[in-house]
């Protein structure tokens, strides 16, 4: 998994590539947790993401809850068809802002 963070004032983009699974999800979770203070808009850029399991979905749901608590906005962009399918079957399409 690769993680690349781009901060622009109160907007943060996190590019995630490779595999977001049980082994790698904790690393993304701690990156997200340590970077959300003062962030009004969080974007996950998944154009290079190849795979996501329930461990990755947990990180997204936790981030979405935190952003909601802060009154901010979270966006998911660039997800592949396969990953969009996973959002669909788990109901995540309805709780994430997928662009």
């Amino acid at each position: 998994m690769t993680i690349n963070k781009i901060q622009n004032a109160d907007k943060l983009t996190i590019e995630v590539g490779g595999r977001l699974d049980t082994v790698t999800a904790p690393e993304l979770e701690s990156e997200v947790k340590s970077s959300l203070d003062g962030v009004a808009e969080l974007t996950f850029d998944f154009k290079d993401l190849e795979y996501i399991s329930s461990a990755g979905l947990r990180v997204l749901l936790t981030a979405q809850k935190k952003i909601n608590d802060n009154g901010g906005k979270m966006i998911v962009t660039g997800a592949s068809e396969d990953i969009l399918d996973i959002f669909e079957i788990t109901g995540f399409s309805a709780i994430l802002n997928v662009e």
Partner: protein
Amino acid sequence: MEKLNIKAATDRLDDVIAFVVRQLEEADCPMKAQMQIELAVEEIFVNIAHYAYKPKEGMADITVDIRDGAAYITFEDGGVPYDPLAKADPDITLSADDRAVGGLGIFMVKKSMDDMKYEYRDSKNILTLVKKLR
């Protein structure tokens, strides 16, 4: 048909996935089915690693059998009896704030496999996933 005997621990996940993927590739498994199988294998193996022997450690056997245009993947462990198929599905219509973090793994497996069978026999949990390859 090949069998892998491995410690049921999340740090062995990459070895488990590699073992399964190698056989799927040899069988020219379509990419979409391969990804769904990888996901199912991860969710089931991680479940065993987290709960089967808690707080101790134990082993799991994983068998891949590809025949009649389908992959049969069997997991065996000697941990506490646990039927993942008996678990209630999560409510996927709730809002982000109301949804529990977790409980999605088995549900995703159920949604992506063509069949699943569970039995408890000879003090072992035996779970077989079936995925049609074509």
